[in-house]
Every structure is written in C-alpha cells, then in structure tokens.
C-alpha cells in the first residue's frame, strides 16, 4: 500500500510538471507532447486504480486523438506562415 501511494504521488507530480511545461515551453510541438504526457500519465493512474475501461478511453482520446488533432492544427498554421513570407 505504501509503495503504491508513493507511485501515485510521483505520477501526480509528473503530471503537474508536464502541465506547467506545456504552458512555459517556447516550442509548440514540445508543448503539445507535454499535454499528451499529462493524459498518458492520467491513463496509467486510472489503470493502477483498477479502472481499465476509463484508462483506455483516456489513452485513446486524450493521449491519442486530441494530440494528433493539435499536431494537425499546428501543421496547418505553419503552412499559412510560409505562404505569407
């Protein structure tokens, strides 16, 4: 029980660090990846807390699909910038 609680607290701290990084990193791709990392850790936490169904949803939608959508949006904005040059 003690070890498990330690893992939970470490995961939570990692999520907070990744969330703060997502706001302060200058490079947008790194920021998107940091947001994905928050979701990934959240899904691992759900898995450790015996909720595999929720973990799967979080991993598929939070870490997978929304990260891909952000990356695609970034790709589009870069295209516009290049056209204006």
């Amino acid at each position, binding site marked *: 029980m003690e070890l498990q609680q330690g893992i939970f607290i470490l995961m939570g701290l990692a999520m907070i660090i990744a969330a703060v990084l997502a706001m302060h990193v200058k490079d947008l791709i790194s920021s998107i990846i940091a947001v994905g990392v928050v979701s990934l850790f959240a899904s691992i936490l759900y898995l450790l807390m015996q909720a595999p169904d929720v973990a*799967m*949803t979080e991993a598929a939608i939070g870490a997978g*699909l929304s990260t*891909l959508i952000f990356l*695609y949006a970034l*790709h589009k904005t870069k295209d516009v910038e290049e056209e204006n040059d």
Partner: protein
Amino acid sequence: MIKRLIPLLLVISLFFILLKVATNVAPNYDLTGVAKTYAEQGASDLGAMNLVTAIVVTYRGLDTLGEVTVLFMAGTGIALLLRRKKKKNDSGIKNRAASEILKTGSKLLVPIITMFGAYIFINGHLSPGGGFQGGAAIASAVMLMFLADSSFKINHKVFVLIESFSGIFYVLIGVLGLVILGADNFLDNRILPLGTFGTILSAGTIPLIYTLVGLKVGTELASILDNMKGELE
C-alpha cells in the same frame, strides 16, 4: 497589483475548499445499493465477463443511446459550421509534404491500429474497452492517414451509410427487446441466447450493440476530423 491579487485569492480559496473535501472523505470499502445488485447479479443475469460493459450497454443502455446521440449532434453541428469548400490553391505554393518517416510509419501502423480498434469493440464484453474506445482508435488511424498524406480523402458516402445504418440497427435492437420480451425491456440483451460465459459469442446482444457503436463512433469521429480539415474541391 489587483490583477495578480484576485487569481491568487481564488487559488488560495480553492486550496481550502479542496482541503476540506480531502480531509472529510470517508472511503467506502463495501459496495452498497444499486452497485451491489449489479456486481452480484450482473454476471449471472447478462452473461458478460466485463461488468462495466454489462452496465453501460444493458442496465444503463438508455444513457449510452443518449451518449451516442450527443456525439451525433456534435458531429452534425461541426459539419454544419465548419464544412466548407476550400478554394483552389492558386498561389502555386504546395503544402509541405510529410516526412519519409511519417509516411512509411503510417503505412505500417494504420492497418494495425484499425484492427486493434475492431478487436477492442468486438471483445467489449470480455475485456476492458468497448465501442467508444475502439471507435476512437479507428478515428486516430484515419487521422494518421490525414497527417501522412494531405491529399488523402475519405469516402463520405460510405462513411455516412455505415454511420446511419449502425445507428438505425442500434435502436432497432432496442425496440426488439420491447417486442420480444415485453414492456420495460428496451435494449435488453437477452433477446439472443446468452451462450457460454466468457466466449466471443456470448452475452446476448452486447457484442452486436458494441460493434454497431464502434462503427458509428469511428466513422463519426473520422467525419468530424475530415470536416475540420476542410474539403479540397
């Protein structure tokens, strides 16, 4: 100064609210009420190995139908607002091509991700996951194809057909419960034989419903992504 003070005060008050919640929580180690009934009778009543699926599809089947409707409304709204015909790019500047790694990697991964999505929703009554998760996995495979090839288009007619028919069949299966088993049996899974506990063809209509939900969610999310992308005519 005041600009910084107000958020600070908000954060501090939020901390005290959460502290109150965190110190007053009394963990509940035993199941009570309706949860106990579900846990005790779910497996023998409905024949599903994954109790979460049994609750989501059967006991709370009406809520799931509502959830599917909400997603459908969201997809319709996005199609209404964002679907537009993009003008031909006449400036002569082409979109940047995806890197070789992304192209090759997506060719390798897309079939595997799609198959895994199908596996998740077909095995919804046996293992964790179900229609929504499997559908999201399939949609992320479609998104990967968009990323790898900017000229890639989905076949709208096929997607719309799959989506509408899975929605219709989902409701029809629900209504069949009313017809076969009598009133207040909407979305009951026992209109088909329950089969052997733990095999793929068991738990009545649950695998059927989750396959339909998976197809519906997958095609719907893929259409949403396609509408956000904008159509090149």
